[in-house]
């Protein structure tokens, strides 16, 4: 501290001056603090009036904004939805639809994160099956049964089998936009050159693959860096090799055992294709899109693709002609051979939405006959609206695909959206390792059984 030794006049003046300076500084400090406090108060205060203004505006013009999240950020798809929104806003001047789009992989994470907050979109995309059940069980999704019952026109114009996977405990929670199924798309030129025809059974399939391989072509394009691609094969094989009632019980998280031998067989069937060299080299590091390009350019003879991808195939395929066939039947398989792998996807409404009626109105509009037909003509997607896809507006391949879908007994939903996420998180990456030869099918199914048991314990 300051201490003054000799009280002479000089030091007295020095002391005075220092005291004055001290006071001056103290005053300055006080001023600063006051300023700081005042500005912070002003900062806080200015928020409120702004908020009131915003609310007041909403109140006077009655403009309602609903948030709409879908999973197709590609320009063509985005343009379709933008058109739908523009038309809808014209019909409903009091509603404004705010659209957002994120890709397939990203939306899985985004939705999970958003559900935990209050910024949920009013209308959001969802796959059917277990993925949708997650939202339903956690009360995040609005029950639409009543809305459907009230408007029978609406209910009757949507394919029943597409609503089914969005149903839980007899209540409807989702509105399907499109249906989808998986087929082997093949290069007709290559098939003809080798005198091959569409295989109907697994044995014929193996024969075709061997012939193709002998002729020097890679038989199948496969891009499995994200393991859903391999999971689609297993979806089909499980359903052909495991008895239906057992499979259904296992896929339900409440009864999952996965102890049937068919599950191991299914993986072995796929592994067999790998071991015989029917897939392109290094498929575990190749993206699906890159694998498609190999098929387009004729480097490979076929690829397992979705109905919704047919539009692109038709546009980008570089050979003369292409055809398709479903996953061949396995003659002594214990499952149903007349299933087709595929699932509808669509939209759900958040249970926390402030504007349920407006959101329902938008979904009704989106699944109107007109917009359904537009979905077929502009994007080539098989709309879930009955009759939207017809001879007048669709390419023959789509009609043939839809027919195959109608003839099938039922649909086998994608494995990764049909079983509990924690089980699929073991199942899918494990599949990559089995295909790499680093794990046996038995070991993988054992892991699946263990995690299924754990999931069961945790939930019930």
């Amino acid at each position, binding site marked *: 501290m300051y201490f003054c030794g000799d009280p002479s006049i000089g030091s007295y003046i020095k002391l005075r001056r220092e005291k004055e300076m001290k006071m001056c500084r103290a005053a300055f400090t006080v001023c600063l603090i006051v300023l700081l406090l005042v500005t912070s108060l002003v900062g806080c205060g200015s928020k409120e009036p702004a908020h009131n203004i915003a609310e007041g505006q909403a109140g006077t013009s009655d403009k309602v904004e609903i948030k709409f999240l879908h999973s197709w950020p590609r320009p063509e798809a985005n343009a379709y939805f933008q058109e739908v929104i523009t038309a809808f806003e014209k019909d409903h001047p009091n509603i404004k639809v705010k659209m957002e789009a994120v890709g397939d992989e990203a939306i899985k994470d985004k939705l999970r994160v958003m559900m935990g907050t209050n910024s949920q979109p009013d209308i959001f995309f969802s796959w059917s099956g277990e993925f949708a059940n997650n939202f339903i069980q956690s009360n995040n999704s609005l029950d639409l049964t009543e809305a459907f019952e009230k408007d029978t026109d609406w209910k009757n114009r949507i394919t029943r089998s597409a609503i089914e996977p969005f149903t839980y405990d007899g209540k409807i929670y989702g509105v399907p936009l499109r249906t989808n199924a998986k087929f082997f798309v093949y290069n007709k030129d290559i098939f003809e050159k080798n005198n091959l025809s569409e295989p109907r059974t697994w044995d014929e399939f193996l024969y075709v693959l061997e012939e193709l391989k002998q002729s020097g072509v890679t038989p199948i394009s496969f891009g499995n860096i994200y393991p859903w691609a391999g999971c689609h094969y297993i979806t089909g094989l499980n359903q052909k090799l495991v008895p239906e009632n057992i499979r259904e019980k296992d896929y339900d998280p409440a009864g999952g055992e996965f102890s049937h031998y068919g599950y191991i067989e299914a993986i072995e069937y796929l592994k067999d294709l790998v071991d015989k060299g029917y897939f392109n080299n290094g498929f575990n590091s190749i993206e699906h899109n890159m694998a498609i390009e190999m098929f387009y350019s004729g480097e490979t003879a076929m690829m397992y693709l979705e109905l919704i991808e047919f539009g692109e195939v038709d546009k980008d395929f570089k050979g003369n002609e292409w055809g398709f066939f479903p996953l061949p039947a396995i003659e002594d398989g214990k499952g149903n051979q007349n299933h087709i792998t595929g699932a509808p996807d669509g939209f759900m409404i958040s249970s926390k939405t402030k504007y349920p009626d407006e959101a329902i109105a938008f979904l009704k509009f989106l699944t109107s006959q007109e917009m359904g037909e537009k979905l077929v003509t502009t994007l080539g997607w098989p709309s879930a609206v009955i009759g939207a896809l017809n001879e007048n507006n669709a390419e023959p391949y789509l009609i043939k695909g839809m027919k195959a879908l109608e003839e099938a007994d039922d649909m086998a939903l994608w494995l990764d959206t049909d079983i509990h996420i*924690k089980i699929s998180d073991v199942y899918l990456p494990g599949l990559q390792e089995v295909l*790499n030869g*680093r794990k046996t099918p038995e070991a993988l199914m054992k892991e699946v059984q263990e995690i299924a048991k754990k999931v069961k314990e945790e939930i019930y």
Partner: protein
Amino acid sequence: MGLYHNKKIAFLFIFPALLLMLVFIYYPIFQNFIYSMFRWSAFSSEKIFIGIDNYLRLFKDPVFYIALKNNLLYASFSIFFQVGLGLIIAAILEEKFLRKYQPFFRTVFFIPAIISITVAGLLWQLIYNPNIGIINEGLRAIGLDNLAHPWLADGKTAIFSVIVMSQWQYTGYIVLLFIVGIHKIPQELYESAMIDGANSIQKFWTITVPQVKEMIIVSVTITIIGGFKVFDEVYVMTGGGPGRSTEVLSSFMYRSGFRNDEMGYAAAIATIIFVITFLLTLLELKISHKKDEV
């Protein structure tokens, strides 16, 4: 004068900054720790208290050890290539005969560091492509067909392939740091060494290395902590696969939290990552502090 000694007023001035730090840095760390004691999902607001069960499960989870091993690999390779090789490259670039061309090489080495990781990741995915990738094509072109390999598709080589890409991207950055460091070394030291008849290698070990010691410590810290925080490279190039072979701690945390919806478990992993990087930082501080005292 009194103002500078008045702790109360000093605190008042520090307070706003301190408040921001508390709210945005320390509180979340604390909160994360609390979260790790619960079983909860982002879907619902229900939280079940389970104590340290998440940690017990984590230490039994084989994926945790794969991830930890991969992080360690990442960190050690980064030290070897970025710091070790980076220092050598910097020393060579600082040699007299290369000085003239140094800006050119500096730019060449630094360019990868300014490319976004996502772009670089996709680029390397193509480089590693088993069929059309430049590595395999190149090997085949010179007749080494049997060395061609699906680099990213094989669980044994995948993590190393990702690490290589990281070295490509960041070595240039560290080289730049070292060049700055070497610039600061007084030229007289080299001159007198030359008069004493030292060759380049001797000069490197006896002058360059001791003089940039501080920079070496900084770079080692940056690369080790970077090795434990790595996420984007893995996420873009392999997504943690094939199987779980390229999983690192942060991708493991991401998968647990946002894919499997086990927020409590993810919080436990986050705590572990925090503890590891915190200890490493402490260690670094201690080392550099010791140096200051000397």
